[in-house]
């Protein structure tokens, strides 16, 4: 043959290779990981620990921290002879409301996705426009919706008045409706998000299975329930995760739309902790940190679930 060897290795007298060369495969991943790990540790991991630490102190953010043990938690959760912190209670229940109602984005997104999953001219543009709300900042969404909800002149009020409905104080002024009003505003972009997840999910549905089901006589809702939805499970899972995260993180909307009011009825934990820590009458950092820690534990429940699912998939994949 006429092709001559091109490999340095063909030389039997191998030069002693450098330490890096010899351990290249073992070292490289760590070198590649280093910057990201560094950043992540400094700005995420360590601060989580610090928050735990701060939550055992009384601290106004300016002077020295004073160790108070679990006093913050006792006050927050009403341990011992205290009453549970009223604001915390309200925030907690509001958070639950957010959690439950925010999940409506999932079926709503699915519904719109099904509606749009057609191939007619211009459908791509329609899909994009339906997705639009997700791209817009929550601050803008919040503003838009608070005008939408304005008493008397807001479009919402105008429409409900046609039906003879009058919400006292306007949607956002009435403590019975304000939270729901904000959630509805949040559902708008979130539904768009779920919609796009489902649209991609629907794309991945095995057409042969749909055909098989069609031959099996499954139609409409039956087909959806028995054949399509099970296949959309990954999309549903992700939609679930992002929705939960979104619900627990809800801050921007509340801050813009009601600033927690009327009389604190729209507070959620994340907002409350911001209020305690950094707002006008706040700067009780220790207490704020304690709220954050409680929120963290609620979230941990979901994080664990998510990681566990991922772990199972990873094991299965290997």
């Amino acid at each position: 043959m006429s092709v001559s060897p091109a490999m340095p290795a063909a030389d039997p007298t191998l030069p002693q290779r450098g330490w890096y060369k010899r351990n290249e495969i073992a070292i490289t991943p760590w070198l590649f990981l280093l910057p990201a790990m560094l950043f992540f540790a400094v700005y995420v991991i360590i601060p989580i620990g610090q928050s735990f630490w701060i939550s055992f102190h009384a601290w106004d953010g300016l002077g020295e921290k004073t160790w108070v043990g679990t006093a913050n938690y006792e006050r927050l959760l009403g341990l011992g002879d205290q009453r549970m912190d009223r604001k915390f209670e309200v925030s907690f229940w509001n958070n639950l409301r957010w959690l439950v109602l925010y999940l409506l984005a999932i079926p709503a997104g699915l519904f719109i996705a099904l509606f749009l999953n057609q191939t007619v001219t211009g459908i791509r543009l329609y899909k994009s426009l339906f997705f639009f709300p997700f791209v817009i900042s929550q601050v803008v969404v919040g503003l838009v919706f608070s005008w939408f909800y304005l008493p008397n002149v807001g479009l919402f009020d105008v429409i409900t008045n046609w039906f003879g409905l009058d919400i006292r104080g306007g949607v956002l002024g009435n403590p019975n409706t304000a939270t729901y009003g904000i959630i509805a505003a949040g559902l708008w972009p979130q539904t768009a998000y779920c919609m796009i997840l489902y649209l991609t999910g629907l794309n991945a549905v095995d057409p042969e299975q749909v055909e098989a089901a069609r031959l099996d006589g499954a139609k409409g809702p039956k087909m959806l329930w028995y054949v399509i939805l099970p296949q959309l499970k990954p999309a549903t899972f992700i939609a679930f995760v992002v929705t939960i995260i979104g619900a627990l993180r809800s801050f921007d909307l509340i801050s813009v739309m009601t600033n927690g009011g009327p009389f604190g009825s729209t507070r959620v934990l994340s907002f409350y902790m911001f209020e305690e820590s950094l707002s006008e009458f706040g700067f009780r950092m220790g207490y704020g940190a304690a709220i954050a820690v409680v929120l963290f534990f609620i979230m941990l429940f979901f994080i664990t679930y998510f990681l566990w699912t991922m772990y199972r998939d990873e094991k299965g994949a290997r």
Partner: protein
Amino acid sequence: MFPTPIQKRPRTAQITYQAFLPVALIVWLLPLLAVALFSIKPDADFTTGNYWGWPSSFEAFNNYGKVFFESNMPRYLLNSLLITIPTVIGAVALSCMAGFALGVYRFKGNLFIFFIFIAGNFVPFQILMVPVRDLTVNLNLYDTKLGLVLFHIAFQTGFCTLFMRNFIRALPFPLIEAARVEGVAEWRIFFYVVLPLMKPALAALAVLIFTFIWNDYFWAVVLTQGPGAQPVTAGITEFNSQFRAAYHLMSAGSIVAALPPVIMFFLMQKHFIAGLTLGAVK
């Protein structure tokens, strides 16, 4: 395909569908259309109570002119750009590398580190607020764009790494083995083999992060103040207090603030949608 393609339905169903689409869209976008309408109305319409009617005069140029020339809006927009673009570059670069390490190599702790990234990403970010603010203050980065950028890079790295790692995992592993057999150094494999293949993921992620960061409000409030460093989301609230109850100007301002990610979205639509699903729905 589910539901049944409309083409296979009766003609009437097709027409109904085609007609219903724009109606549904209008209802869906009603709040936005309202803002757009507000933004071209004259002030007088609001005092006379003409909120929802036809504008009594067309004031788009006036209103938007005010936004651009009589407020800090342009400055905020510039800030947003100066925060968003470096963050996108930084987060994507870091996560590419981390994703490569986690996706290609098998080593002890691989999965653990990966999970740390994911978990950190899903943490309620309020828990970071106080310590991160302190850290930023101590680094003398409070109220600077750099302070915001550094934090955003770090926090987004969690999400981006999840995304990148899954993407790299899905690349055919023999490509890397083939390069190894050919004696290509590991870092060169990253640059010459893996990176070029990640182009779609890079584009998708870049667009996604752009929107995330552009729309961030919370951290803008926590880590910056004033038009020196604050991005447009925070700026819009200042704008609002400056023109409180001037709905026409607020609307115009909101629209201006929302525009860049919207433009980005339309330009890179394909990548964007891929981005939302790629990393997540495997």
